[in-house]
């Protein structure tokens, strides 16, 4: 239902041009949860914003590529055509709910607004006719999210809610419209285990109702729990992709190995985590060749000269690394 082909995006400023995404290809089928995993600066949020058409231009510039959603190339759509897709077609949940909720309206009026938009479009099953009915719908919605005393929460403003509750309100606004594709950008970062579980549980429910989810995260444990397939991104490029279990149990790219090794395992007497030293890349000063080469333990000459392309090494499994033999998916 979503296919991205060779997407390249630049950030243009007075200091010059920085490539924030390069040649990203991705697809998501109906009913699938696709994870986009990477650290800061890997371009995962940019990718989400690009799909929604929310990147400002300038400073960003789409250099090449196609984003095809249900047969339509989103990059060619005009403003009002894109607006029709927002909401019921594609919707996004952002990392910081305090920034995505309006601080001067109560929870009720913000969820109610989404309902009103639905009514205007006439394409939702749960469209209330009156204010009272709308209030009842919203209360039920909040109760389903395990919010205690939803009647009280209705009257509150975003700043009066806890982080987890705010995020659930933001998600409920996105789910009202039952989007066919939901993009969620780190919705559980900074929240504790319980709240995380509650929110992830909601995503499972969303998928069961037939939606597709693009889940952006840096946390492999979450990705391993909810994603069918994952794309590992580094420096604006896809480094490895495939079925979640296969990628995590048998990583082919050294960056994937480093991410897997970063998850603390064992107790105090456990050996140090086998992580590759170094910081996430500075996109302004990327090395030649493979962008991971300064941190790579298997560095070869070719890695510094030529950038490996993302190639299929076995069915549905892709990697961009010189170390992997393209013919059989084994290390050479």
């Amino acid at each position, binding site marked *: 239902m979503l296919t991205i082909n060779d997407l390249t995006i630049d950030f243009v400023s007075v200091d010059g041009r920085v490539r924030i995404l390069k040649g990203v290809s991705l697809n998501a089928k109906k009913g699938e949860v696709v994870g986009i995993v990477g*650290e800061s600066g890997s371009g995962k949020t940019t990718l989400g914003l690009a799909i929604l058409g929310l990147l400002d231009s300038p400073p960003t510039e789409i250099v090449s590529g196609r984003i095809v959603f249900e047969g339509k190339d989103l990059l060619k759509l005009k403003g009002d055509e894109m607006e029709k897709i927002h909401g019921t077609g594609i919707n996004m949940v952002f990392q910081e709910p305090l920034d995505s909720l309006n601080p001067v309206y109560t929870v009720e009026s913000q969820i109610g607004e989404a309902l009103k938009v639905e009514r205007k479009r006439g394409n939702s099953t749960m469209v209330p006719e009156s204010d009272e009915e709308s209030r009842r719908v919203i209360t039920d919605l909040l109760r389903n999210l*395990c919010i205690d005393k939803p009647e009280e929460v209705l009257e509150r403003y975003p700043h009066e809610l806890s982080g987890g509750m705010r995020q659930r309100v933001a998600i409920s606004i996105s789910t009202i419209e039952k989007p066919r594709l939901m993009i969620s950008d780190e919705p559980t970062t900074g929240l504790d*285990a319980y709240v*995380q579980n509650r929110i992830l549980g*909601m995503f*499972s429910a969303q998928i069961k109702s037939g939606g597709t989810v693009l889940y952006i995260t840096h946390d492999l444990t979450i990705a391993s729990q909810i994603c069918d397939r994952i794309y590992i991104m580094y420096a604006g490029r896809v480094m490895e992709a495939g079925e979640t279990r296969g990628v995590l149990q048998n990583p082919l790219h050294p960056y994937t190995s480093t991410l897997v090794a970063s998850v*603390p395992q064992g107790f105090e007497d456990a050996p140090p985590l086998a992580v590759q030293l170094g910081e996430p890349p500075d996109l302004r000063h990327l090395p030649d060749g493979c962008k991971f080469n300064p941190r790579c333990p298997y560095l070869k000459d070719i890695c510094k000269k030529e950038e490996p392309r993302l190639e299929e090494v076995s069915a549905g499994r892709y990697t961009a690394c010189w170390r992997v033999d393209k013919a059989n998916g084994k290390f050479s």
Partner: protein
Amino acid sequence: MGNLVEIDHLTVSFRSKRRASLFRSGPSLKALDDVSLTIGEKETFGLTGETGSGKSTLAKVLVGLYKPTSGTVRLLGRKIDYKKRKDIAFLRQNVGIVFQDPVRSLNPSLTVKEVISEALIASKSVPKKDYDERIDFVNKLVGVTKDLLPRRPRELSGGQRQRISLARALVVPKKLLVLDEPTSALDVSIQAQVLNTLKKLKSELDMSYLFITHDINVIKFVSHRLGVLFYGRLVEIGDTRTVDTEPKHPYTQSLISHVLTLKKAQLQETVVSEHRPAPSGCRYRIVCPAAFDRCAAVPPWVNLGNGHLASCFLYDHSSSRENQALLPTAAATGGDLRVPPHEPL
């Protein structure tokens, strides 16, 4: 192993600024309620709990940023009087702290070198001629390279900033380092590097750590002993391995079962309801699946062996089960459970 820090019945309450009336002050909130724990020498004590459980309040009491409302804190056997400047200075001389947010905890107008040497100047314990040597020493330990010294915090990445916070905390030799969510603002591969550094440092510097985080995977990996806080009250304390593999308190059991790992599929479909703390007695009793009538009273600490303690009536066999059935409920006695069970059947 002697005890470096002894915290005894520590309570910290905050009074709401909004007054009830002109003559009555607002309600007060207990951020920490009757917390007792010890941290041994060269030990890492892990403290975990949800947001708002009082983890950071404890950290701030240990460096003298908050004063206890009641209870005592002893450091190296000396009882700290929070009203005496000398005692606060003693506390800060021996306890360092690293905060969660590496952006807001570094002065943006100072260079890295100034940030680190400020701690030396304030402590007065290191002679001025040794400053450079000392800075070099700790920078090597935590991995701050020389080229960073003239830069300002905004030019650095999150991982570098957190290393500088660490260098600042360690530049004056400390007995205890309080780490308040030191890695939760960092990228995963940076978090792993900082955790490795912290574990290596501890063996080299003979320090104790109080490691505070909500991430159970992290706390398991670093700490010898573990304490679990629920809304200001410690509910369980013990050896990390024991608490993790055989949690006793219903809250700890539930908390640990919700930790996501890479290995197994464990996402729970049944969604947990909001945690509302009970105003009295066991704070967890409203949501606790095992709650019974005795839970309306404050549960005692039950020793489960090998320093594993849980504050829960389920393990308290001091009075027999038959007696429990006879205990009047809180509602019947107006909330006072100290009425002896002498009523005839």
